[in-house]
């Protein structure tokens, strides 16, 4: 054990010196701009490289590069970085985590940067701001919608879901499609913010909000009843969004809730899958389109004396055509109202469904205490989904837990 620890210490020292040496040699030529991201898929990596190459050849002053940090460790590394000072110049991070890190002092005020602030979609832009100051720009925006397996619907002789589908219709569909190891519907309800991201939508559509759990108790009832009927898979309490998509691709789910970033994976791994996407089911015939939760990343500028390189990168990305090209590779949408109207998206029925859903999407929080809210809220969903509590009991307890968050 001792030897292992010593070895680890020696190795990490060696790595730290290696990094120092690297940054020194880069500084001799041009000023470096280091970006942290957690992008894992080939398409995402290609997008990042294209962006960086484009930025590097567009000007002479800076050289950008990016460092991959695993998503599971991301927030921990940022927190430790604030304490130790080992931080990049730019951070790409989940939009809902930004408020916490602004509060923690990670990001610097860049309100003076030459950015077309008023072109951005308000929800995502708000998540990069605090007290009227800008700390970065939205990088990508998306939301979840309803995927459905057309072949399964055809076989059962049921009409596809669409913008008029209500919760009652949805429940009937899921029930009719559940058979022979196929579940009617599944989503991600794991006990992390990834689960909150997908489950919270149901609460809002039922009339609640992240501070008003009891107002959305109908969502709890729907979940528990559908899971007890077997038409909404109970396995979702341990599923991440990739798990959900894998099961949808494998034909274990007739419908899934998921985001547009799954499309490249479906095209690569299940090219024959005959599927469609529409907005999430609405509460009842009289209510408006269902609410979805905004996802996507922000770029935040790390608070340093010299933030010029990071600002230059943001200004490069602020160009609508750069943003549009990057987002085509990424499988998400540009956070600018006009940029999202590119025919690449509007001509494709699946992409168009997501753009329609984004119109009624709201951000998580924004609140610096979002992680505490998220943890309390997701515990409530898990209590309902595993039938550990009745919807009434779970709503009362979760409401109390949410009220206790400062």
């Amino acid at each position: 054990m001792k030897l292992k620890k010593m070895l680890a210490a020696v190795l990490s020292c060696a790595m730290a010196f290696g990094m120092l040496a690297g940054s020194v040699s880069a500084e001799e030529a041009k000023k470096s701009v280091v970006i942290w991201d957690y992008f894992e898929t080939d398409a995402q990596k290609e997008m990042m490289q294209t962006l960086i190459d484009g930025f590097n050849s567009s000007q002479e002053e800076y050289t950008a590069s990016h460092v991959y940090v695993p998503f599971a460790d991301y927030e921990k590394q940022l927190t430790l970085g604030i304490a130790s000072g080992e931080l990049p110049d730019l951070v790409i991070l989940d939009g809902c985590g930004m408020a916490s890190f602004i509060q923690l002092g990670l990001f610097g005020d860049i309100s003076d940067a030459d950015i077309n602030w008023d072109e951005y979609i308000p929800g995502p832009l708000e998540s990069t701001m605090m007290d009227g100051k800008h700390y970065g720009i939205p990088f990508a925006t998306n939301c979840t919608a309803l995927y459905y397996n057309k072949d399964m619907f055809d076989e059962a002789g049921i009409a596809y879901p669409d913008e008029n589908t209500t919760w009652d219709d949805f429940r009937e569909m899921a029930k009719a499609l559940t058979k022979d190891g196929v579940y009617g519907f599944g989503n991600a309800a794991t006990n992390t913010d990834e689960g909150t991201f997908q489950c919270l939508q149901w609460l809002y559509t039922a009339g609640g909000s992240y501070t008003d759990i009891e107002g959305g108790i109908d969502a709890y009832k729907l979940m528990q009843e559908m899971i007890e009927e077997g038409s909404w898979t109970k396995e979702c309490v341990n599923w991440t969004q990739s798990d959900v998509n894998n099961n949808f691709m494998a034909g274990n789910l007739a419908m899934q809730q998921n985001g547009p970033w799954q499309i490249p994976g479906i095209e690569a791994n299940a090219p024959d899958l005959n599927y469609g996407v529409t907005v999430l089911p609405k509460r009842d015939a009289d209510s408006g389109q269902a609410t979805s939760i905004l996802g996507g990343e922000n770029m935040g500028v790390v608070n340093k004396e010299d933030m010029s390189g990071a600002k230059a990168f943001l200004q490069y990305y602020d160009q609508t055509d750069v943003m549009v090209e990057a987002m085509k590779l990424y499988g998400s949408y540009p956070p600018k109202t006009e940029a999202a109207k590119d025919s690449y998206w509007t001509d494709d029925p699946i992409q168009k469904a997501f753009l329609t859903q984004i119109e009624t999407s709201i951000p998580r929080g924004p609140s610096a205490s979002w992680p505490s809210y998220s943890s309390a809220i997701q515990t409530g969903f898990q209590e309902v989904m595993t039938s550990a509590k009745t919807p009434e009991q779970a709503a009362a307890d979760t409401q109390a837990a949410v009220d206790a968050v400062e």
Partner: protein
Amino acid sequence: MGFLFALPAAIYMLVFIGYPMIQNIILSFKNVDVYTFAQPANQKFVGLQNYIELFVSGNSILTKAIINTLVFTVGSIFFQFIIGFALALLFNKKFPGCSFFRGVTMISWLLPVTVAGLLFKFMFASSGGIINQFLVALHILDKPMDWLLQPKSAMVAIIVANIWIGIPFNMMLLITGLTTIPSDVYESCNLDGANKVQTLFWVTIPMIKPAIMSVLTLGFVYTFKVFDLVWVMTKGGPINSTELVSTYAYRLSFEEFQFSKGAAAANVLFLILLVVGIFYIKLINEEEEIM
């Protein structure tokens, strides 16, 4: 002169163990969270407030985590010890291939815990997991069980995984203990007509009592602070049913940014282990006196 020799060790202890520990204790009495982290001016001492809130708040997760950790530790050690002891007795006999098989059983100790956690996560999967397929094929279960999805069975699953990891540790320490028993003791047992069971309970176990106590206390300390296995398998879920003090402290600090509360939870863990540690040191000293 003697103190000079102890100096390097003392400096090491102060810098790498003493300093972080004291910092952590100070932190746990402050109000550092997401709002005050960047503003040292607003950080102030709040006394025992963090500890009180952790224990008293309506639905105290910490109390639940301590109970979970105890269940996890006692459950793990009970089986690890029995199986480890049985294997130690087996490998203490000389038979062909003995050292090879003893080496093979060490694999679970050599495997990184994260890897073991992932393996068990796949094996316990509700659909397609090998454990369910096995139990259904043998008609022990009628239908696949949701091991990691139900609060009670999730605890069983992480205990099973941890037992598997901990067996070699128990086995090796006990084998070392067994080799210290001189063979003439057993010869005299034979002459006196003691049977196997009597020999085990009246000779073997009392003679390796020091090794047994070491295994149990060290095992308790190692198991009580397990983090990675649980983090990989369940992340403390579902519904906090496998939340241990270690995972809860991590969650508070690095997911919710409640640094002071996280430090307080970590200190509770430390306090419990300190008691066990003092017990262990006392035990060792007593034995040295006897010898």
